C-alpha cells in the first residue's frame, strides 16, 4: 500500500473515478496538460484525453455553469477552482442554478466543485479563503471538508458518486503535510458523506472540528492528556450533511463542547454547531459552549499577521484548558 499525501490521494481518487465511470471528467484552469496549479489533476489528460480533462478559459462562473449543464445532460463533472477564493465568481451559478434545480424540477445535478481552501501558506487575502460557510447557508449543496489523506481520497470518490452538487473544500495547508497509507483502485475505500469520525476518544471535553484544525486539536489532546485531561476529537468530515448524532453523542458523554475551525468566527460553521448543542444537549452541559476560530478580518499576507489571524495550537490549548477547568 503506497503512502500518499493528501494531494496525491485527491489525484488518486480522480484517477480511480475517471477509470470507473466514463461520465466523469475534469475541467478548470490549467487542469489539463499542466495537471492543475497544485498537481491535483496530474496525468489525467495524458491518460484520458482532452475531452475528459479540459483546460478552460479563465472564467469561473462559466466553468461552474458548464459543469452544471454537463451534469444535467448526464455527465459527472469535477470542476476545479484554481483557488477556493475564486469560487466567489462562480457563487451565483452554484447557488442559483445548481442548488435549486432538483428542488424545482427533480432533475439531479451530480457535480463536484473542488475548492483549494485555507490559509497558512502565505497566500494573502485572495489565495487563503475558507469558503465553506459561504455555501452552508444555502439549501441544496453538500459541503465536504476532509482532514486526512484517507478521507481526501474516500470523500472525493463519494462526492463524485453523489447525485447532488458538492462543494469539496480541500485544504491547501494539508496538501503535502497530511500523509497516510491510502489503498486505491479496487481496494479504495469510499467514505460516505454525512458520517463524522471520532478521531480520538476522550471523556472530559469534546472538540468538534474539521479540515486543518483537526491536526491542531489532536496535538492539543496529546498535551492535555499529559496534564490529566481526556479530550475527545470529533472530525465532522462533511458539514452538509451534518452528523448531528455524532456531535450530540460526544457532547452528552463529556458535558463540554468546543468548536474549532480555521474559518473566521462570525457566521462560521461553529455557530451552527453551538446552536445545535445548546438546544439539544443543554441539560448535559457542564460549561458554556466555546468556539475557537480565526479573527474577523480578511486574511493578511505577511507571516506575523497571518499567524495572528489564524487559530493556532496555542489558542486551542488555552481555550481547552479553560473549558476543562470550568
Amino acid at each position, binding site marked *: 500500500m503506497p503512502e500518499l499525501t493528501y494531494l496525491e490521494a485527491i489525484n488518486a481518487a480522480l484517477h480511480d473515478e475517471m477509470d470507473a465511470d466514463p461520465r466523469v*471528467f475534469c475541467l478548470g484552469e490549467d487542469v489539463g496538460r499542466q495537471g492543475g496549479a497544485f498537481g491535483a489533476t496530474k496525468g489525467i489528460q495524458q491518460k484520458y484525453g482532452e*475531452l*475528459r480533462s*479540459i483546460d*478552460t*478559459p479563465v*472564467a469561473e*462562473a*462559466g*466553468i*461552474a*455553469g*458548464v*459543469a*452544471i*449543464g*454537463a*451534469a*444535467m*445532460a*448526464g*455527465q459527472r*463533472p469535477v470542476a476545479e477552482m484554481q483557488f477556493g477564493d475564486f469560487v466567489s465568481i462562480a457563487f*451565483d*451559478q452554484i447557488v*442559483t*442554478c445548481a442548488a*435549486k*434545480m*432538483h*428542488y*424545482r*424540477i*427533480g*432533475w*439531479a*445535478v*451530480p457535480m463536484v466543485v473542488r475548492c483549494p481552501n485555507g490559509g497558512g501558506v502565505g497566500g494573502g487575502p485572495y489565495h487563503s479563503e475558507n469558503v465553506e460557510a459561504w455555501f452552508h447557508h444555502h*439549501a*441544496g449543496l*453538500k459541503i465536504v471538508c476532509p482532514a486526512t489523506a484517507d478521507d481526501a481520497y474516500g470523500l472525493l470518490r463519494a462526492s463524485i458518486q453523489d*447525485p*447532488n452538487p458538492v462543494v469539496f473544500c480541500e485544504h491547501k495547508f494539508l496538501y503535502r503535510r497530511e500523509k497516510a497509507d491510502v489503498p486505491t483502485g479496487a481496494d479504495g475505500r469510499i467514505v460516505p458523506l454525512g458520517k463524522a469520525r471520532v478521531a480520538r476518544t476522550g471523556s472530559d471535553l469534546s472538540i468538534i472540528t474539521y479540515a486543518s484544525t483537526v491536526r491542531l486539536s489532536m496535538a492539543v489532546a496529546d498535551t492535555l492528556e499529559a496534564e490529566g485531561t481526556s479530550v475527545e476529537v470529533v472530525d465532522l468530515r462533511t458539514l452538509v450533511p451534518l452528523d448531528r448524532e455524532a456531535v450530540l453523542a460526544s457532547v452528552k458523554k463529556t458535558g463540554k463542547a468546543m468548536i474549532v475551525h480555521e474559518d473566521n468566527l462570525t457566521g462560521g460553521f461553529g455557530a451552527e454547531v453551538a446552536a445545535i448543542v445548546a438546544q439539544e444537549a443543554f441539560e448535559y452541559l457542564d460549561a458554556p459552549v466555546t468556539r475557537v476560530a480565526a479573527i474577523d478580518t480578511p486574511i493578511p499576507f505577511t507571516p506575523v499577521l497571518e499567524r495572528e489571524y489564524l487559530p493556532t495550537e496555542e489558542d486551542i490549548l488555552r481555550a481547552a484548558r479553560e473549558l476543562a477547568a470550568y
Partner: protein
Amino acid sequence: MTSPARKISVVPDLPSVEVSDDLALDLYYWMTLTRAVEERALNLYRQGKLPGSYYTGRGQEAIAVGIALPLVRGEDGDWLSPWIRDLGSYLVHGVPVWRIFAQFMGKAGSTTRGKDGNLHIGGREWNIPCQVSHMADMIPLTVGAALAYKQRGEKRVAVTSFGDAATSRGDFHEGLNIAAVLEVPAVFVAENNGWGYSTPISKQTKVTDLHRKAAAYGIPAVSVDGNDVFAVYAALKASVDAAREGGGPQFVECKTYRMGGHAAHDKYESYMPMEVLAEWSDKDPIKRAEAILLEEREITEARLESIRERARDEVRQAVEQAEDDGYPDAAEAHQGVFAETAD
C-alpha cells in the same frame, strides 16, 4: 393538399431551407396557440387568479416557435433553454398546455409542483432545464449540455434564447467564449426586443446589432427579422444543422420589439414611445404569417380559422384541467432539496 416546398433563404451565409405548406401551417398553429395561451393567462392574472406577476412575449411568437420547431423533441432529443418571452418554445418542445396554466396558478400539476412560477418551467422528459431569473445564467449551462453531447459523440444540439439585456452580463461572455474555444454544438438566440425592463438598448450597449458581439468570440452569426416566422425558422434550422454536423457554436440575432411592459404590472406607457409601438403592431408576426399563407401559398381562410379554433379549444380545456387540479400538499415545501439518485 401539399403544395411544393418553398425555399427560404434569409441570409446569404446560410443554406436555404425548405418550408412546405404543412410546416408553414404548423408554424402558424404554434404561434396562434402561444398567443391564445398568453391572452387567456393575462385575463386570469387580471382577475386575480394567478399569484405573482405575469410576463408575456406578445409579438415575439415567431421567435419562440421558430427556434423550437427545428429541434428534436424528447428526453433524448435536443436541449432547449428558452427565456421568459418564449412561451411558444415550451409548447413546441412538448410541455402540455394545461401544465403551463397549472404552473401559472401554482398548482400541483405545474412542472415545478408549485415551487416556481411563470415560465420557470422544465423537466427532463422534454430536455428543458428550468430557467432562473438571473439574466444569462442559462448560457453556460447550455454550453455544458452541448459539451456533454460532444463528449459522448451524440448528434444533439443545445439551444438557448435570451434578451438583449442579457448580453450585458458576464455569463453571456464567459459562456460564448467557452463554447467557441471548446467548439461545442450550441446555438445562441439573442432576441433583440429593444428593452430591458425600462432601459432602452441604447443604454444597455453600444453594439446594438447583437450578432456583431458573436464575432468577438469567433462564432458565426446572422441577424434575421424576428417577426418573420419563416425567416426565424430557416435561420435556426440552418444553424442547428451546422452545429449538429460539427460546425461548432452558432449565433442568431432576431430583431423584434417588446409589445408592452416588462411584466403585466409594468406601466410601460410612461417610457415607451407609442408611435414606435404602433409601427411594430403593424409588423405583428401572426398577421404577417396569415398574409403569406393566404396570398402567397393560397391557403384558405377557412383552414386558418379551423387552426385558430383548435387553439382556442385546447386553451379552454387546458384552463379547465388546471383549475380542477389541486394545490400541492404543504409537505411538498420540505421535499426535493437533495436527489436520492441522479438517474
